[in-house]
């Protein structure tokens, strides 16, 4: 019989579980039922009492590791916390959100427990036991996997299921003691790299991708970097879109070529960048070749503006390809959006 432990952590407020944690809880509740398994939920955070109330009605034993040391997302303390929760729960299956905090530590924790970890899980199913779906080769190959060995740690991708919604009731978490190793790392804060301009918005409905074409010579023989910056930032301000980029454009920054000043490697989408999730995506001045488009795997509706009618987007990668000058089109798009404000 399987025993499921769901590992969760509190968010930046310190008073609530992260959305991705609640998605993992929902998976735990669902598969505890399907596999006839017992369910334990573990919480990591400086304070866990308030966050634990979000687990009311989950029919689970709730364990917690709390204290100032666990306010920081730090490998040594988080790994010790997760290890202690696992030793207290003795699970055969461990579900955890694929947040930066847990993605950092779960493989190491699995090793400490003599278990194995699989990551980027986008779906779970009950077949002959539990099976998990994930991608390989940067979303270019999909596979369904199973592991016979236990404990099996599964890092679940965010945005793949509805978060758990608490029922009425009170939850009293059981504290679990942790022996911390010497802590040599101190988290001092976070830093936004985009010079005060927030260009990455994971919750945005639309993704605007700017390709290297924005910094190439235009029909008048000149590069129009300042105009490109104004058009792109104007669109972001008017729509609240998130900004992505191709590797070639971001790399130009490192090579001191003409660049969009707000663009960093964090904006990079594709084979060597991010694979964000947005309902819509608009590509501009980007050729739509495979290494780039793999980053669009989770963009539902796709449109592109490119001067080349034979670019990658035309080959079944976009829903609509506008063969046009992005400078002219985006200027008019921004004007229309501004009128409607």
């Amino acid at each position, binding site marked *: 019989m399987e025993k499921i432990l769901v590992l969760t952590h509190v968010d930046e407020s310190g008073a609530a579980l992260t959305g991705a944690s609640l998605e993992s809880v929902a998976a735990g509740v669902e598969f505890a039922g399907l596999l006839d398994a017992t369910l334990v939920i573990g919480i990591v955070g400086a304070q866990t009492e308030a966050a634990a109330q979000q687990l009311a009605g989950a029919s689970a034993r709730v364990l917690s590791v709390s204290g100032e040391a666990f306010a920081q997302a730090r*490998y*040594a303390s988080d790994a010790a916390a997760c290890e202690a929760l696992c030793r207290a729960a003795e699970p055969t299956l461990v579900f955890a959100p694929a947040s*930066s905090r847990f*993605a*950092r*530590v779960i*493989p*190491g924790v699995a*090793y400490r427990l003599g278990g*194995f970890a*699989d*990551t*980027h899980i986008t779906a779970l199913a009950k077949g002959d036991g539990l099976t998990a779906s994930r*991608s*390989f*080769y940067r979303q*270019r*190959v*999909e*596979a369904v*996997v199973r*592991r016979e060995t236990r404990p099996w740690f599964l890092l679940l991708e965010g945005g793949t299921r509805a978060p758990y919604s608490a029922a009425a009731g009170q939850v009293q978490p059981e504290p679990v003691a942790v022996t911390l190793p010497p802590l040599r790392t*101190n*988290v*001092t804060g*976070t*830093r*936004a*790299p985009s010079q005060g301009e927030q*260009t*990455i*918005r*994971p919750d945005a409905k639309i993704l605007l991708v700017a390709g290297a074409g924005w910094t190439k010579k235009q029909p008048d023989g000149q590069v129009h970097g300042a105009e490109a910056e104004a058009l792109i930032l104007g669109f972001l301000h008017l729509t609240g879109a998130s900004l992505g980029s191709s590797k070639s454009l971001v*790399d130009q920054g*490192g090579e001191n070529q003409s660049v969009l000043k707000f663009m960093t*490697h*964090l*904006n*990079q989408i594709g*084979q*060597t960048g991010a694979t964000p999730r947005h309902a819509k995506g608009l590509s501009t001045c980007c050729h739509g070749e495979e*290494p780039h488009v793999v980053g669009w795997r989770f963009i539902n509706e*796709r449109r592109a*503006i490119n001067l080349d*009618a034979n670019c990658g987007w035309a*080959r*079944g990668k*976009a829903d*609509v*390809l*506008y*063969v*046009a*000058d992005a400078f*002219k*089109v985006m200027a*008019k*798009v921004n004007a*229309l959006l501004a009128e*409607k404000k």
Partner: protein
Amino acid sequence: MANSFHIVVCASIVPDPLQTLEPAAGPAGSGLKNEMMLPAVLDPWAAAGLYEAANLAAKHPGSKVWLVSLGPKAKLQQVLMTVAQKVPFELVAIDGPLGGFTDAHSTAAALAEAIAAIPGLDREHLLLFGGWESASRGAGVTLQTTGERLGITDQFQGVDQITVNEDGSFEVLERVEGGKHQVSVCTGAPAVLGWATGNLPEPRNSPQVGMANMRGIMPALQKAKNVKLDANGLSYISVSLPKQKRETRLVKDMPEDEIAREIVAWIEE
């Protein structure tokens, strides 16, 4: 040895991103069609780690860089002919299977064993570098597990920057949610850093660096230990290409005003 580092970079080789991939079942399990024939490159994120390692070593005299790579010897040799011209390093080669369908935990065990056996490696000054994920398996498991096996409990993933202070401590920027970096200060080596893209461009080819590297690469390849990777109970029920083909509507000769109106209407849907 004040502020000098022994930097070990773990890097796999992966199919060139421009190649079309097709899954195929072989005698050894799941794989890619014509996998050994596909042009390969050093994994992009691990390559960023290698360039950052070389940059760090250049700034801190007495430092040294090792590149540890697991793959078929012939394939390693092909890829390293190019990589060797970028930055100075000493190769530690492990002869083993290629591809994303091998188990990360077995790979980590082989890497940790090879790293522990590096002659003269000062574990107190060790920085273990690599990509935070590979472009093949993309698990983000190998480096953490290798670090655990080597007893390193200061680990950072999605790293874009390391800045070493005069006292040997260093500041690390790690990618976290929302397009931000988490800033941490570690008192010093040993530590594990799984790199994202970093901030350095790809170094230009240097024939001098290439010649120096190649003197060590061929002997390292010749004495590469062969390893078999255990599946650790992992099996593949299905492996397939994602369904991604769309019916693209090609819009030509439409005035910009009309295109703009259509896009705005679509955004507002």
